[in-house]
């Protein structure tokens, strides 16, 4: 059986790549995909602990995280379509009128 630390390190690296991606990318769709990557890293942690502790609750949590991710993708992509229709841009720096 593979030690749980391997999975935790892999999930941390995936989360790290996703976090850096959100910070350095300017295309709103790509930033959104990096957020999905971070969610998947967290899911991997949940499943690794579920296996390690022999409890099923981790899998239930991942199920709910996936449901929320699907809802978030639908609403987020609708917002992106509305943004593109109104501003003709996908660059987040051009849509900063609500920024403080």
């Amino acid at each position, binding site marked *: 059986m*593979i030690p749980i*630390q391997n999975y935790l390190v892999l999930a941390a690296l995936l989360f790290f*790549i996703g976090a850096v991606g959100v910070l*350095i990318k300017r295309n709103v769709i790509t930033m959104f995909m990096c957020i999905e990557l971070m969610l*998947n890293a967290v899911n991997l942690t949940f499943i690794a602990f579920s296996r390690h502790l022999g409890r099923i609750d981790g899998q239930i949590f991942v199920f*709910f995280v996936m449901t929320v991710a699907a*809802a978030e993708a639908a609403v987020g992509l609708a917002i992106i379509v509305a943004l593109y229709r109104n501003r003709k841009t996908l660059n987040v720096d051009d849509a900063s009128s609500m920024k403080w």
Partner: protein
Amino acid sequence: MAILSFYLLAAIALTSALSVVLQKKAMSSALSLIVCLGAIAMLYVQLDALFIAVIQVIVYAGAIMVLFLFVIMLLDPTSERLAPSLKSVAYAAVPLGVLLAVLLGQAIIVYRPASPSAREPAISDISAVGMRLFSSYVLTFEVTSILVLVAVVGAVILAKKKV
């Protein structure tokens, strides 16, 4: 054997995740993300989470990523020139990301896994997942249906021609 397949899948997941961030075109990023999700689904199989692995392929790779691809093809973001990312932001992001990785790594190294207590009979049993979902977590499950309903209505209203 198991450790070998773990390292292979981890290498695929990390390479494709890096590719998501480093690709210039949004379409290439999306395709790389699908590869990454597939590798993670296989890791779920290795971790005895068969139900979650199937859901990962159907919901993530099948539904969410197809939605992404539709939007990318609809808006065609390559047709417009995206301004290069702000240099100052990029310079700040990488040290912050490395700091995050170091902190996470430190937490994992310090962490001593508790020995599993009261092991449940079979975590790979899908019927056990279903029983737990509709007994202990039934309220959460019902609230999720409201969330999905709100998301559907919100997506339709947001994407309508005239609000």
